[in-house]
């Protein structure tokens, strides 16, 4: 393995254990993985295989029970909650299965929210979001609230939100689960373009074959552990 500070993501012997009454449930078991900058990677596996939990650990949304996690060269296990929040703000973008747009904000405001928190200039924010909206087919929908958008449109807003602040890493949890095949394909096309154009690292947790087919690297998980890790040529 390389120096952990040079890769986009690196985990070493990560375990995540939940306690349910007297029982211990190991959602992630001894996972050691390294994802290089600019990779387009899928974590695949059936429900309960631990892919979402691993994604949450990598994103600093939950702490591992054991092991070490580095994101963009920083060791998450040594960071406080506010430090993790700042790391997420600066380095990590999220796309969730349920879109998770803020209902009181417009599409434009949702998309620029992380940049607003970063203190980026309003003109710069508007330019970046405007360009991405055009590119992703959301032109003209800037002023709409999430409930006035279709599922596919909401997910595209979520994708713009995740990439507009130019993070090092985007973690997407089942981003196509609520979309029809056409919308899924369009969304994946855009994500692939952003990966190639901007060099953003994408990691998907998915069991959608369309996502798996488009990823260069496929990591299969079963019962919290990595079963296989294949890179397509």
């Amino acid at each position: 393995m390389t120096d952990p500070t040079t890769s986009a993501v690196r985990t070493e012997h990560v375990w995540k254990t939940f306690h349910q009454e007297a029982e211990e449930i190991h959602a992630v078991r001894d996972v050691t993985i390294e994802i290089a900058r600019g990779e387009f990677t899928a974590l695949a596996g059936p429900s309960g295989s631990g892919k979402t939990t691993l994604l949450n650990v990598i994103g600093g949304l939950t702490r591992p029970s054991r092991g070490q996690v580095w994101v963009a060269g920083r060791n998450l296990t040594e960071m406080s909650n506010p430090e993790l929040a700042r790391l997420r703000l600066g380095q990590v973008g999220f796309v969730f299965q349920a879109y998770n747009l803020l209902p009181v904000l417009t599409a434009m405001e949702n998309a620029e929210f992380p940049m607003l928190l970063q203190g980026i200039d309003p003109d710069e924010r508007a330019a970046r979001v405007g360009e991405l909206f055009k590119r992703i087919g959301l032109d003209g929908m800037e002023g709409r609230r999430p409930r006035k958008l279709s599922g596919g449109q909401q997910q595209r807003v979520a994708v713009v939100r995740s990439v507009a602040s130019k993070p090092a890493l985007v973690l997407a949890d089942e981003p196509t689960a609520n979309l029809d095949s056409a919308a899924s394909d369009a969304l994946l096309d855009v994500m692939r373009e952003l990966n190639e154009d901007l060099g953003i690292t994408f990691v998907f947790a998915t069991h959608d074959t369309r996502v798996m087919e488009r990823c260069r690297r496929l990591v299969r998980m079963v019962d919290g552990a990595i079963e296989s890790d294949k890179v397509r040529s």
Partner: protein
Amino acid sequence: MEHLGVLVTLAFRNLRRQLRRTILTASAMVIGGGTLMFSLSLGDGTHEEWIDSGVRMGSGHVAIEHPRFRSGRKLEDRLPAAARDAVEAVLRSPAVAAQVTTASAKLTVTGMASSAAGARPARIMAVDPVAEAAFGTIDDQTVEGRYLEPDDRLAAYVGVTLAEALGLRLDSRLVLTAQDAQKEIAGQLVRVVGIYRSGVPEIDQSLIHMPLATAGEWLGSGEDVTNIGVLVADSAAVSGLVRTLRAELRDPIAEGEAAVIGWREAMPELAAAVAIDDFGNYLVYGILFVIIGFGIVNTVLMSVMHRHREFGVLQALGLTPGQTGAVVLFEGLSLTAVSAVIGIALGAFLTWYFFGDGLDFSGMMGEEMTFSGVVIDPVIIPLFRPSRFAQSITFILFIGTVASIYPAIRAARIDVTESMKFDR
């Protein structure tokens, strides 16, 4: 700063999202704030009325007298003419005169009033008729005859109960007997020029007003007085005036010759009544706002519970736990602040509306009530004090902050991954 702006925007939009709940809670707070402001004004008006009635019947908002006079009420414990002149000079000085409404010098002794029908103990108050007419209210309570006039010499203005007890009518003669300046018993014949009814039994049965110059000759006290009463426009200014007078009189009057005391010290029963009434009012306000506080907790906490997922998303996007709590705190505070301003404006409007004619409580308490020598007017005029604005807003914001802290902590401490599993 923009950071703060987005948190405030989120807070306001979330309040608007749950409009019905927000309006219900805000309405409770508006009514509470209005009630608080109006009640404070009404309480201040009531107390000012009590104090005004008490100090006009008694020794003024501020009394300047010999330090021993209050304990013994003896003629020997009086202010010499030179001290009286010094006090009056200070009261005329521009710095003090601006604070003083009016002042009256008095010579008060305890003695007997006798007529052909018998004798009764009496409190004889010798006054300058013009100054006392401006100072007290007793001159307006004449039921027969008139009040004292500047040219009167052997005149007496007596209470209706004392007049009945001594069989006195207008122009009746009576003899006043008291210890004079040489500690000898001295008598003075006077004629009744007026009979009054103050409504306070202890005053109507004992207090006699007579001219100060006549009393000076009768008692051999010359132009000496036992006390000088001072009135101010607002009782809230008393402590400042007491400090000023103490400082101003330090040089012209010898130490131990005069004391400056405020009405609280001069009339402790009245001060206690005001304090007890204030305590009762504050207790009611406290209970009212605890109930309203629970309303705010309920509104903000319900909002937090319904938005677990959103708070999870906010933290996933990079908001720190502290900033997440701040969003909730802003919601509670903005709801409180807007409601407080509207409520207090409502209270101020009610105060203004009733400022002219006041609120008539005579249906509940009869025409007049008295306690501790104070006549309570059944018509209460609310008193507007700007400081009550600041106090009310501070109090309501404090309640709003306290009530929002728990929901804010709940929002700050959410488990991000669990909250995003939360489905609604």
